[in-house]
């Protein structure tokens, strides 16, 4: 009985979250998003990890907004201390959606570039990243070994997701990740122990264009995180 009640609550909560994520951005008159954001996106064919890294770098030092997905490039949080106000920044799962150039269509592994000022979150939340199904444009990695993970892969738990950065960490127990960490921290590159936390799994976007493109006749070695 208790388990059933918990399940009902969980389903309800997921439904609420899901409905929020799938809805278009909230009407945002007099909000930061309403004043600064507009749709601008296009499908592209080739997308490399290093392109994704460069895209994510733009979001460094910007804000965090639960359910959000719009930011500028002025290296500060434009809506500090105003959580859930249609303010600046992505949340963690929306940040991965835009950085990985994912699409909302089922079974679509293609790429769509979204301008940083387009307020889009995408349909995927952290549980989708942690428990992908076959039609998703990402897969769960078989393990979290350093020889397996590559930069711009993600570590995802039920509640948070972050992407692995390419720098060698300053100590043995951490990784540099880029993430929309929370209202108080914003979006940036942080040092985190997700690899060593059993709640986190490794996730990889499907269909990356090799980093060597378009000169793969002279292949560069893949960048691995040391």
């Amino acid at each position, binding site marked *: 009985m208790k388990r059933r009640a918990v399940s009902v609550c969980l389903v309800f909560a997921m439904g609420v979250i899901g409905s929020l994520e799938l809805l278009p951005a909230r009407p945002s008159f007099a909000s930061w998003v309403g004043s600064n954001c507009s749709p601008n996106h296009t499908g592209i064919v080739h997308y490399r990890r290093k392109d994704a890294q460069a895209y994510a770098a733009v979001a460094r030092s910007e804000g965090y907004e639960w359910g959000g997905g719009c930011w500028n490039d002025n290296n500060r949080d434009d809506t500090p201390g105003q959580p859930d106000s249609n303010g600046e920044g992505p949340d963690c799962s929306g940040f991965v959606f835009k950085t990985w150039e994912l699409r909302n269509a089922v079974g679509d592994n293609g790429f769509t570039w979204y301008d940083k000022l387009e307020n889009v979150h995408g349909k995927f939340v952290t549980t989708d990243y942690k428990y992908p199904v076959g039609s998703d444009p990402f897969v769960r990695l078989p393990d979290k070994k350093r020889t397996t993970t590559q930069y711009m892969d993600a570590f995802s*738990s039920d*509640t948070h997701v972050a992407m692995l950065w390419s720098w060698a960490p300053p*100590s*043995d127990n951490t990784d540099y990740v880029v993430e929309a*960490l*929370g209202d108080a921290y914003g979006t940036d590159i942080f040092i985190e122990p997700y690899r060593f936390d059993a709640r986190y799994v490794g996730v990889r976007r499907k269909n990356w264009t090799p980093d060597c493109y378009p000169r793969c006749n002279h292949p560069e070695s893949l960048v691995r995180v040391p």
Partner: protein
Amino acid sequence: MKRSLVPLVVGAVLLSACTSSPEHFAATTPVPNSSSHGSSSPTTASLPALVLRADLSDPAASWDRVLLVPFGIGRARLLYRPPSQAAPAEPTAFAVAPDDSVWIADAGNSRLAHFSVTGRFLGESKTPGPPRDLVFSARRMYVLLEEQGGRVAEVRAEGTMEPIAARANGRALRVSELYPDPPSLVVLSGGYADSLGQAQPSGPAGFVRVDGSGSGQIQALPGLPIGRGGTVRVAPSEADPDQDIDVIYLRGGNALVQPIHFKLVARRGPTAGQIAGEFGPANLLPNDGDVAAYVMVSPSRPQDATRYGGGRWLLRMGRSPLLWERLPDPGLPDEGQHRHITLGPDGHLYLMPLTRAGAETYRRP
């Protein structure tokens, strides 16, 4: 030269007096990697590898609970906001003062909260944002206010904060952890804060001593000072960076390398089997020739993580007998917590797991 190595070797030999269950003990004779007998050039010696088993069915060691600060609203409580498409807002660090009172970095409320050992709220010091780390270096308390720009401050008795420059060549350093090094402070630097976009950050990375008086003087160190003229650093092994580390003791230009191989063991019924694991030693604590570390352990494979979960262990090495024991698991997602263990004024180890009851503080007997 040999004489200067003796304390290191003795320290390593002492490792063999283990309180846990390593499968292999350090040998009494180091194996030199480079020959320098009869000369004054530095030497590097390696010891046989230690094998440490982390059995996920092991019970946690029993520590004494000294404090519980509940979560909730109000100055005498701490903020815990469950994670949802973000990391949780939760206490990030703690420190035990010379009078045994406890300071907790209450990140969700952007403050340092001060409690007596009886749990009485003693006061607070507001911070400009969520504090990341907290440490006492002798009687001075330092707080890491921001990782990206390396903003460190000394917290004065009246609650005010005196900025400490963690800069080199006029450029701020990224700082992720603080360590005591009286009368100074040591930080773990990730290089220049403004070197984003480079293949690897430039500037001093690793352990850096910062003049605690605010002069701005920094000194790159070969390792974390652990007292008695020695330093230590932990490096991933090239052979297996997930399960092997090298603990490198440095003293007087000589190095002694203690390789450690971790084994992760899980049990299904009566059968125990080894599974692939990830081992992350964090929160290095220097203490009179010893170094302790909080080791996070996770199965590598997601199906193993689902089936067995992970764990946390304490590793202590150095002059004292080797200690390798399981710690209580947190009862809540705690990825926002940066400091899990710290040293008290009496040299005791303290642990702060986050549970549904609140932030609990334990002292090792």
